[in-house]
């Protein structure tokens, strides 16, 4: 049961982290350090 809980918490935690990374990288300014155009 605790393992299932750990699995669900991990999905939520890492999901939130991925969401933040997505927002930063999808921001035009966030991308400008990679692309010149």
């Amino acid at each position, binding site marked *: 049961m*605790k*393992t*299932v809980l*750990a*699995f*669900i*918490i*991990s*999905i*939520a*935690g*890492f*999901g939130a982290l*991925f*969401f933040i*990374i*997505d927002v930063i*990288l*999808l921001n*035009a300014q966030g*991308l400008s350090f*990679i*692309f*010149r*155009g």
Partner: protein
Amino acid sequence: MALSNKRLSIIKVVFSLSFFAFLLAVYFFASGQPVVSAPVLGALDYPATHGVNRRLAVWMAAQMHLWFAAFVLAVPILVLILEFIGVIKKDKRYDRVACEFLRVSITAFSLTAITGALLLLSLIVFYPQLMKYLASIFGPTALFYALFFLFESATLYAYYYGWGRMSEGSLKWVHLLIGLGLNTAGTGLMFVANAWVTFMMTPAGVDVSGVFNGNLWEAVNNHLWSPMNLHRFIANIAYGGSIVGAYAAYRYLSAANEKERAHYDWMGYTSSLIAIGALLPLPFAGYWLTAEIYSYSQQMGITLMGGVFAWLFIVQAVLIGALFLAANYYLWCGFGRGSYGERYLGYVKYIAFVIAICFLVWFTPHTLILTPTEARALGGQYHPYLGPLGLMPAKNTAVNIMLLFTFLSFLLYRRSHRTPTVAWAAYGKAAQAGLFTAAVINITFLGVYYGYFTNTLYKVASSVPQVATTLFVIVACLVIEAFMLRGAERTEFRWGRMPGRSQYALLLIAVSFTWLMGLMGFVRSAIRQHWHVYGVMRDASAEAFTPSIAYAAKVVSIGTIIFMSIIVFIFWLSSAGREASDE
């Protein structure tokens, strides 16, 4: 006797490398006179070829040179990494394999120089005006090229010949330093050559009529230079790993005893691990390269991805898909090396299913070649359900999920000889499973939402967080794994127990890489279309048209067969040399 042969062969290599460098430097300096603007060429500006197809001759010479150059630039990187690991781990196996890797590549060094000289000669003979124009801008870079070449030759000599003499104590560190110098020179060489090639695609430092403004750095640091440097650097490592993996497979299949089989099994695993490890970040470098092409010229980008060349990306998908299946198959076979491997065999069918689905999505074409009857039956040019899978967002999603599941195969492989014993192991595994699940959801969301329901800017940009997600999972999982496997129950891998068919997977990986490099290299070069230097210097020769994909595929396939035949000959030479020195 063996020593003098060794010395003789290395002298030949040094001589041929120096000869090529000398030839190039002399040409560039001799013709590096200021040119007012890019010449406007007519058909008569190209010398008669007496029946020789000039484009085909240059294409073949360039392709052969690039394959050999990729191999000889990559192997010293692998060698240095392995030698360093051997010193840190105090494991002589790494050192032995590193030395063997270098010996395999030695013959290829001479062939790199020979094919390079052939390429240079064919360019000067068939395209003198283009070479004159390039030399007028890049003349001074030839000095760096020649210096890098001479430094590479000298360090190669010292690195290979000094292996035995500098094997202990502080001398070993000096040897590593020489290896670093060898790699720095090799990478520098590639960067200089990349400047010439990328200038032809995305010229900078010149105006529309090709008048050079005198700022050489601007011409060198053009739009594609940095992404091309990164892409080729990573791809070369993957390529070198795959070719050495093929060598190990060749030796494994012809091994005379168990000890030899165990040695080459380990060598094959190590090199394929490096090849696949370098392949994982390669799509990111590819995105950067492509984004810079679009950023320089949308027209060029559309020719690349949306025109006739798009079909070559389907061929690419088939080849890379086959490559991933082969890599996964090799890892699954490797479960048998560990004592606990059997408990993971049940997962193989699920991983295979996901990879097969991703593979199918990846090579679904967007535009179909249809007869009018077929188009009527379909209700249009695109398939109503499968059509969306032909677009890049679907493919990016499939590729990233494929990378994740290949990494999962690798994680299970690593566990096949270890069982974690830490109290929190169950939670650690749950966290890893959660990480994979969240990543697959995120990658799918980015692909579907930003790929089909927002504007085009986000469609392209969403590929960046997709790759970032994949890379994050790889790093985070390895960190969790490292902590979780502290004090784990472990048994030794039983090397040499791989079935013979697994070795054919390694051979398939090497052939796929070679073929891919040829095909995609053609696309990269061909998007210049009828330009020598894109938008600046027009190609007026009779061969200035874009050949059909079928023709290009035939040329590259024949090139692949020739190159692989030479590589097999090099493997045979290397084995023969080893047997002779053993005797």
